[in-house]
């Protein structure tokens, strides 16, 4: 396989919430069209790290960031960065499904609409394509105009994935996307990831070791704001180099 340049190239990233440091000297490359899993105990900074990639941490006024995050070679923390464009290209799926209180159709059309697409036929196309990609179309094709809040949790999460895909991103960030779902919905989303990684770069936070093992190509282990170990998933799981990684993994599988 030919080595393509990394999608994200992060070096010496430090992040503070006020005076407490949440990320310490993170240096890592994230490869294109692959699934990168972030694991680690709760509160170790996985979500914080994920949110530095689409600058969603900007919403919190106390956050201070140092170091560089290069997306396709350009520093996204540079003053001239177009954050709107960045977020369009780096989509995000949250831990709890967060559909908007509107119809399924409007949920998916929301992104394209805010980016200026008005044409009804184009929107129809996008909605259908995104739903098909998110493996939801067959289940909901007859009720596109009903409220998204009427869907089951698993369907809602797939709707949120479809909503992200509708803006044609390049990277999809997922923060524990299945932690609030039942096993069947979880399996559906895991299968979906398999499909999506052919086209997108995916970074997923998970608490579930089996999930990380099943879906990811590379895994990063975070501990107390530090990136302890980053390697191919199999290698990290079966041949961890760091004692802390080994403890965490054996405890988890134990």
């Amino acid at each position, binding site marked *: 396989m030919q080595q393509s340049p990394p999608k994200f190239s992060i070096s010496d990233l430090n992040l503070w919430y006020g005076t407490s440091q949440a990320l310490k000297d993170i240096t890592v490359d994230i490869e294109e069209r692959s699934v990168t899993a972030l694991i680690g105990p709760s509160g170790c900074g996985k979500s914080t790290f994920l949110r530095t990639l*689409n600058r*969603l941490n900007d*919403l919190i006024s106390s956050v201070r960031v140092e170091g560089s995050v290069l997306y396709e070679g350009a520093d996204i923390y540079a003053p001239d960065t177009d954050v*709107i*464009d*960045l*977020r*369009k290209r780096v*989509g*995000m799926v*949250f831990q*709890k499904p*967060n559909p*908007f*209180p*509107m119809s399924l159709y409007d949920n998916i059309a*929301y*992104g394209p*609409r*805010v*980016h200026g697409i008005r044409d009804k036929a184009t929107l129809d196309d996008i909605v259908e394509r995104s739903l098909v990609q998110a493996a939801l179309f067959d289940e909901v094709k007859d009720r596109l105009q009903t*409220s998204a*809040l*009427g869907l089951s949790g698993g369907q809602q999460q797939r709707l*949120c994935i479809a*909503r*992200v895909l509708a*803006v044609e991103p390049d990277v999809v960030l997922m923060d524990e996307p299945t932690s609030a779902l039942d096993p069947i919905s979880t399996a559906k989303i895991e299968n979906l990831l398999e499909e999506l990684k052919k086209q997108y770069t995916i970074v997923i936070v998970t608490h579930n070791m089996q999930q990380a093992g099943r879906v990811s190509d590379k895994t990063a282990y975070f501990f107390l704001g530090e990136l302890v170990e980053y390697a191919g998933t199999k290698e990290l799981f079966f041949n961890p180099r760091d004692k802390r990684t080994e403890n965490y993994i054996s405890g988890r599988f134990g």
Partner: protein
Amino acid sequence: MRKATTSRPGSRHRAAMRRQGIAFGMIRGFSFMTIALLGLILGFILWKGFRYSNIDRSTLLPHAEASPDGLVLAVHGDQDMPGIDWEELYGMYTDEYINWSKLDQSDFDLVPVAVDPLTEDGARVEAFLFGSEAEGGFPLWGGLVEYAGSAEAALKVVAERQGAVTIVPAAAAKAFPGIKTVPVRRLAIAMNQDATEFVDESYLEDLTAQNIRDLLGGRITNWKKLGGPDLSVVPMAPPMGSALAAEAGRAGLTYPRPTVPQPATDMASYLADIAGTSGAVGVAYAGDATLAGIPLAWMTRVKTGWNLTLRYLLEPPRLSGKTGGISSIIANTFFMLLLTLAFAAPLGVAAAVYLVEYARQGKLLKLLRLGTETLAGIPSIIFGLFGFLFFVNILHFGFGLLSGSLTLTLMILPTIIRTSEEAMKSVPRSLREGSLALGATKLQTIFRVVIPASSPGILTGLILAIGRAVGETAALLFTMGSDYNMARGLFSSARGLSAHVYLLFAEGISFDKAFSTATVLVVVVLLFNFAAKRVIGRMHRQAAA
């Protein structure tokens, strides 16, 4: 027994249970009382609003004759008049009334039309109204009266012109198109002068229907029983076979036994008998008795009818609201609310957006919140004073819709800001993040996600605030004025429903109308509350889904 059981183990517990039972009973009692009181108040207002019931004094019996002396009173076919008193009929032809406002509350000019008295039909009418000259009558035709050559000509005028009346032979009016005949009340109880004397500062009291039957039937034998002088009652029967006797029979008056040795055989001597016999009483035509100078007994009668009719809602008010309806006032209220909403909704929502989404949470914000809360608690009259000074005088808007609506806006703005703020705060952070993560700007997120998601809450606040605005009275009198005509523009003085209720009542214009307007107001407020409930209900259902 109670005392004996106090030392036993379960007794403490039982006493506690008993106390609790009493407490529950009291709470239940109070809540039922509150509900009952509420029902009573609402029921009373609605009842008074829909029905009027006036006690009225009159010298006429309630019985109305369809065609007195073979004549009929004809009015335009659209006129709504179930019956007319003799005095009113007489007054129509003697310039006492110039329009219908006091007769049936419409505002047409009154046009009394008479058949030329030189014709045969005309002479009959003249005799009917003013008595024949043989009886000492003297025609007093008013200056407004228009004369027509024949009964048909007179009826034609009436059919074509609303507000016109005429008196014609019954046969002529029969099946005449476009007119309606009105029955006339002219039966009265005539008494001998002696019965009306003051005794020890006491005077004959107003008679009831039962009193009249008892007097004529001989069951009341002394005028003393009715507050009059100590004098025997001498009931007189109208001449046998006379029209009066027949009419009295139709009115339900009976004379069980002959009361004087020789009952009169003609009307003139009958009236002379009443005038000449001390303590005499008998039924008579009001006009005849008045002509003969015989006093009539006063009676109380209860007039009831519909107060709040469709007409009342659809007609504009007249004579300060004493007659007519409230259509223009309903319209003004509607304009006022619309204008207030147009100012208050965007301002309130914008302020809430600022407070929730943009303002830095700190001391200034706390101060701002304190300010809105204080404003919400200030009595509305203060807003009225401010509005009067600022909008009416300093800005020279004058009394009008604009000044009134701006004042109302200030009054309800704090409520709208508070409720909108709460609604927006309750929109989960995850929705905002979801939108921003899709590349939406903050403004797009606010307008497309936050405001729609909080719209049930915002709407509820708006409805409740408008409910408060619709009930506002004093502040509006200072700023919006009190013109009851439909507003013609932003600077046109206008009167809303509550101000109308207040003015009808405070200026003693019409108690009945005050109640019917109040009923409309209550219904409007109930509708607002109902709408708010529905919206809140929907919000809860959505939250549960």
